[in-house]
């Protein structure tokens, strides 16, 4: 139990985390369910739409308010955000809305802004489908982005249905992300365990040298290492050159811009995160346990599996979990050495954040990734009997 004085020592860190981690994180994730753009830009339109149901004729009282909303939102620079949001659901409406706002502003003073006026600007702006989308984008909250992250959408009647085949993406990407992360974790374990074992067997001086070799890539920038793999793996690169010269292959292998390249580069980058936790536990396993097992008649293989491995299990769980969770978040390595079918979830989070500026979908995908990671962590914690929590 922490005493009151001791817990006071944690106050600065708690405050720091609260202000710089928890608050921004919650704010960002809340973007996945918030709807602010359309309510801000089209308040009058939304008020009239409250009493309208999809399937009914559009009320005539809708359009004068819509026109006024467009003029004011354009002047306040809030229309573009709303147009972008509506374009996610009604493809093509983005520039149509901006054009309608310009035409409303420049129309003669005695113009009647009715359904016909907007139908002349563009038929989409007088259609029930468009106003149904406006109505669905009413705030303060909606499930639009969360549904989109699970490849679901609402039809004009407001019922949830699957996105069209060509737009079903993110479930596949999530499964792909989990698949790549699992493969990388297994590769890291297969390559890392012998190294960690070796580190415990050699003299301290040799271990120090080996440790530097393990840590050297760890200290090098991720981008540099990834770029180096491009040079090594390319068609006229070092690996292909060597294999051809040795006569092992006649044609250069395709090692890059596909899954092979992603697995090789990510395994290399993440290897230290497996070796370090493994080593810290393995070096604490007294060597005489194995000798005792041998003296009691166990063959080396039996001794390894019945004595050594159970003691190493917490380290294996901790190292695997660490590698797996870090791998889940990778995007720059797959982006540079992978192909179209190797991009992971965070690639899309990054694209939507910085590129297209669809922060709602970025947050929803981030939430999806966070929830999956927490779920997997909880499962690992459960099956390992609580040992997953101790990182070595």
């Amino acid at each position, binding site marked *: 139990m922490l005493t009151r004085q001791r817990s006071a020592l944690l106050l600065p860190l708690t405050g720091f985390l609260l202000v710089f981690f928890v608050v921004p994180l919650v704010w960002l994730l809340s973007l996945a369910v918030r709807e602010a753009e359309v309510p801000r830009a089209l308040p009058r339109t939304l008020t009239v739409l409250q009493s309208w149901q999809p399937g009914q004729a559009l009320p005539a009282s809708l359009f004068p308010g819509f026109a006024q909303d467009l003029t004011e939102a354009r002047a306040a620079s809030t229309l573009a955000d709303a147009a972008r949001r509506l374009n996610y659901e009604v493809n093509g*409406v983005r520039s149509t809305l901006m054009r309608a706002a310009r035409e409303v502003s420049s129309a003669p003073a005695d113009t009647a802004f009715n359904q016909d006026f907007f139908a002349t600007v563009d038929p989409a702006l007088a259609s029930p489908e468009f106003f149904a989308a406006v109505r669905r984008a009413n705030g303060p909250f909606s499930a639009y982005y969360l549904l989109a992250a699970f490849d679901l959408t609402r039809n004009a009647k407001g019922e949830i249905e699957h996105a069209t085949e060509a*737009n079903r993406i993110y479930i596949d990407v999530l499964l792909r992300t989990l698949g790549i992360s699992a493969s990388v974790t297994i590769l890291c374990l297969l390559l890392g365990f012998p190294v960690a074992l070796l580190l415990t067997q050699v003299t301290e001086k040799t271990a120090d040298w080996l440790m530097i070799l393990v840590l050297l890539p760890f200290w090098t920038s991720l981008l540099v290492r990834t770029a180096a793999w491009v040079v090594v793996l390319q*068609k006229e690169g070092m690996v292909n050159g060597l294999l051809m010269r040795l006569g092992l292959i006649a044609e250069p292998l395709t090692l890059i811009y596909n899954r092979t390249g992603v697995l090789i580069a990510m395994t290399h980058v993440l290897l230290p995160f497996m070796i370090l936790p493994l080593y810290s536990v393995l070096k604490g396993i007294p060597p005489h346990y194995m000798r005792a097992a041998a003296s009691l008649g166990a063959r080396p293989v039996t001794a390894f599996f019945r004595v050594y491995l159970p003691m190493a299990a917490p380290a294996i769980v901790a190292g695997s979990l660490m590698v797996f969770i870090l791998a889940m978040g990778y995007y720059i390595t797959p982006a540079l050495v992978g192909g179209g079918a190797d991009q992971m979830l965070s690639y899309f989070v990054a694209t939507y*954040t910085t590129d*297209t500026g669809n922060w709602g979908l970025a947050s929803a995908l981030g939430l999806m990734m966070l929830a999956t990671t927490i779920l997997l962590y909880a499962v690992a914690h459960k099956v390992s009997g609580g040992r997953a929590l101790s990182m070595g």
Partner: protein
Amino acid sequence: MKKQAVATIAGAVFLACLGSQALAQSRDLNVVSWGGAYQDGQKEVFFKPFNASGTKLTDEAWDGGLGVLRTKIKGGNNTWDVVQVEADELEVGCDEGLYEKLDVAKIGGAARYLPGTVHACGVGAIIYNLVLAYDGDKIKAAPNGWGDFFDTKKIPGKRSIRNGAKWNLEVALIADGVSSKDVYKVLRTPEGIERAFKKLDTIKSDLVFWKSGAQPPQMLAAGDVVMTTAYNGRITAANEKDKKNFKIVWKDTPYTMDSWVIMKGTPQKANAEKLVEFMGRPDNQAKLPKFVRYGVTAAAAAPLIDKTLMGDLPTNPDNLKLAFAEDVKFWIDNGDKLAERWTKWSGTK
């Protein structure tokens, strides 16, 4: 004693923080461009001479993205003043109020620039093409346009294209027989989109994707691909710097324009306008193609450009008449949906 030392250090750190804060407020004019060899050229031609003329200037590089600009403006901690943006970023960012409205009189007047290069929020910086490029040392029979790019029997081997729908759908339709004049008309129909993806399907197993403009010449050099789409300036740069024999096919290639914008609410607005005016002067612009072969936007710059460079320039009439203009509006409206479709398409075998 020890406590005192800690307090002194803490105080010093605190003052240093305050100092850097004050520095940020009275900072120099900050210009942001695309980095690499291109920005090195801009430094020589624009930034250094402008600095020498008396206004202190710093430069930064970015990778594009409207989300980045929006964060800068809406986050309220914008340190950028003049930024080079792509055509869709200019259009959408202007609608969103991320840029200052441009006072054309302050940047040299509209008459100074080529028609169509002056926008409410920005002025054209460079014009460039997405060309078909190949290694002249490796391919004997030169490809003659997009039809050959999609013909894996005539020219076997991998090809690389940008990882995204933009420009790829256009060239797929052209390869399928659509004339470059009608490309966007066809793309505006659902059947046109289907047709483009179907054409891309025919070479899907031979495709490799690039993300940044530096990759295509590197992929060509490494032998990973026999042909690629690429920004024309990058190809010429590889020929000059790395002594490559890369060739460009200009026929039916899309061209587009980057623009200079001034970020909304900058305390450096007057200096920013001065810089944009300086970079728009014909004699200054005429020096840029020597460093990187992109077309410039001042009408009077063309006769001042070194004649030997003209063959590589997008604004060379011989090249321009073969090319077609990117339809920015089409991509602003359809980009979101087509990006999803592209992701799905490129992610399945």
